[in-house]
């Protein structure tokens, strides 16, 4: 039986809430939905040609026990870790629940989709297969064609099992599991070098999903006040905690129907997300910050005329830093054009180590932000609230709401001392949803836990019982004793015209007295030396005016030059390493050719799709 490398973790008795209403395992919650749930409720998958495939809870359960029997017959033993490499598709649900029915532990991995990055895919996937000690991989025919090379690098005992026929096997009673058995191994997103497998037991997964369900409105009201059943829409990848825990396991526990859009379809045609929400009269969806910016940029006027978002109670936002400007721009357009309620925007905080979420903004409240005196905050990490008329530099921090009952979030210093409200420190978590540790990785586990608290590596503070996330510890730039958050600098720089939104990195370099600030950014428009020099000057001036810091260096790169993770997040650490090595702009996804300097471009092309869309929206 696999063992988690259990950290020095104890949940205080006060945090252990009795939850007699919860089934002991994830599979039993499916069985409950199948026996009690409405037969009209279940999981719906939007196909390529707009035809939907629907699976009621009873069918979901039936396919799960058949898949479990098929896997047992294929040699999967209780306790085995089984990797899943599948797109957002019904076969994922068969495989995931089938592994649980076989008494084994699913480990969802991402399927290959990126153009021209196969080598990177094989290396990373092989590392994840080794990290969770997978006995088998379940994949569909499409993924199987690519996985051959991956499996040669990290062989599994049972090789690759086809997902297509699992649900056709004769059913057998599922293998009994206990609440404290391992239910899932999930990889935290954004980890690039050595992916760390987070082990979670059934009781942890169910504690988190139960808390999420408690927060979500189970009845919405129509404009005329009549009650309305909840419907979720998700394009999120199922190998990621927000897609899997938030939109598969939580809905099963709550008996809420979900409509799935293939992830790749969203990325290719982002507006299909709001199309589907409108068409299915959905009440809840979640996505990272970037998706809100993307869909607002892509929305065409005729779509805005057509979409009805008035039933949406929750547009959750998490998994990456939340930019209040992005969320305001989204809600501004969607409330005036599509009937969206402003309070639907729901910032959330969480991580794979806490199953998924630890805090939500209360559903009925508006998104709340704190304006904080930047000088003061950078000097000693203390929050001093200011209002919009404040003359000096300020930060705007988004409240991620209150933590779930039975859980706790605190801000701590490096020694593990709890800091008072309004003082920035490392955010630490504990509670029944938090992992006991990384799978068979005692070193990583010991490094992540202190005195029973999971140290998240995130910076933030608690104020009036709400969680504010301010950055990542490893990215912090310390200039003359001031703690600067790269995001806050990047967002200021991104306001300069010509700087590509979301493609600015603030890093530090060693200076004679203190560290110095360096900005590395991408620009589509600035191509000639003189254009670049002008942009550098503008960025310098803006940062100086708004933040009172003079950047020691500003580097302008061509589009696609900044290093990014597989999920498209900026890699500050890698950018810094490249910068210090004098290699910045020479790797990434593009080589900045010398020819770029000789090109000149008409200035009127400079504004890009975003401005065009905004102009269209104003009409």
């Amino acid at each position: 039986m696999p063992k988690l490398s259990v950290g020095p973790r104890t949940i205080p008795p006060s945090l252990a809430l009795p939850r007699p209403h919860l089934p002991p395992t994830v599979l039993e919650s499916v069985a409950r939905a199948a026996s009690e749930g409405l037969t009209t409720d279940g999981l719906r998958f939007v196909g390529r040609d707009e035809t939907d495939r629907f699976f009621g809870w009873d069918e979901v359960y039936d396919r799960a026990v058949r898949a479990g029997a098929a896997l047992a017959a294929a040699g999967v033993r209780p306790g085995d870790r089984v990797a899943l490499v599948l797109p957002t598709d019904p076969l994922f649900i068969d495989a995931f629940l089938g592994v649980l029915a076989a008494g084994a532990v699913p480990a969802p991995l991402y399927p290959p989709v990126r153009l021209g990055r196969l080598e990177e895919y094989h290396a990373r996937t092989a590392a994840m297969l080794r990290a969770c000690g997978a006995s088998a991989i379940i994949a569909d025919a499409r993924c199987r064609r690519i996985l051959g090379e991956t499996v040669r690098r990290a062989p599994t005992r049972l090789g690759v099992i086809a997902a297509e026929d699992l649900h056709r096997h004769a059913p057998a009673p599922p293998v009994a599991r206990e609440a404290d058995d391992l239910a899932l191994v999930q990889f935290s997103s954004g980890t690039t070098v050595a992916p760390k497998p987070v082990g979670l037991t059934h009781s942890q997964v169910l504690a988190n999903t139960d808390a999420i369900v408690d927060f979500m409105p189970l009845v919405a009201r129509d404009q005329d006040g009549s009650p309305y059943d909840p419907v979720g829409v998700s394009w999120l990848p199922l190998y990621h905690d927000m897609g899997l825990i938030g939109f598969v396991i939580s809905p099963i526990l709550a008996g809420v129907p979900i409509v799935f859009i293939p992830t790749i379809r969203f990325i290719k045609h982002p507006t299909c997300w709001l199309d589907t929400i409108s068409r299915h009269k959905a009440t809840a969806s979640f996505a990272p910050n970037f998706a809100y910016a993307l869909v607002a940029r892509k929305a065409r006027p005729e779509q805005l005329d057509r979409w009805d978002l008035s039933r949406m109670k929750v547009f959750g936002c998490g998994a990456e830093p939340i930019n209040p400007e992005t969320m305001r721009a989204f809600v501004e357009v969607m409330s005036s054009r599509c009937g969206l309620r402003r309070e639907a925007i729901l910032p959330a905080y969480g991580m794979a180590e806490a199953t998924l979420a630890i805090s939500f903004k209360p559903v009925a409240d508006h998104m709340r932000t704190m304006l904080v005196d930047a000088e003061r905050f950078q000097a000693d990490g203390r929050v001093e609230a200011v209002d919009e008329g404040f003359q000096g530099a300020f930060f705007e921090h988004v409240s991620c709401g209150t933590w779930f009952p039975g859980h706790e979030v605190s801000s701590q210093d490096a020694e593990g001392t709890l800091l008072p409200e309004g003082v920035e420190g490392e955010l630490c978590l504990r509670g029944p949803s938090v992992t006991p540790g990384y799978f068979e990785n005692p070193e990583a586990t010991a490094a992540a836990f202190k005195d029973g608290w999971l140290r998240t590596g995130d910076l933030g503070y608690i104020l009036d019982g709400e969680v504010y996330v301010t950055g990542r510890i490893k990215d912090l730039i310390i200039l003359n004793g001031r703690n600067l958050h790269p995001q806050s600098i990047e967002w200021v720089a991104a306001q300069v015209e010509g700087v590509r939104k979301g493609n600015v990195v603030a890093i530090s370099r060693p200076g004679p007295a203190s560290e110095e600030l360096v900005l590395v950014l991408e620009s589509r428009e600035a191509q000639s030396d003189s254009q670049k020099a002008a942009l550098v000057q503008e960025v310098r001036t803006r940062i100086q005016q708004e933040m009172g810091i003079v950047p020691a260096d500003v580097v302008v790169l061509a589009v696609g030059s900044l290093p990014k993770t597989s999920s498209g997040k900026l890699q500050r650490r890698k950018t810094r390493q490249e910068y210090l090595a004098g290699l910045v702009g020479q790797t990434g996804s593009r080589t900045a050719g010398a020819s770029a300097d000789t090109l000149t471009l008409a200035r009127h092309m400079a504004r890009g799709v975003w401005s065009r869309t905004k102009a269209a929206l104003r009409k």
Partner: protein
Amino acid sequence: MTDNETLALIKEALNDVAPGREADFAKVSLESTIAELGLDSIATMEMVGYLEEQVEVTFPDEDLAKVASVRDLINLIRAAKA
């Protein structure tokens, strides 16, 4: 569609998702690699989405992973149209 017609369509897609880089994209040839296009992962998929809309097909996901060059992309479009 001939290779040249398809290449022109790919350039149109590139200019749609990354406006302001016409001069860059004018140099794109059959031999260019996807990495050389200088798009991030989201913009790359946006470009694929544009092509799907214009050609009125949906490319199989697993085939996308194997696309490393503009020539691969052209072959993919041809196969999808067939």
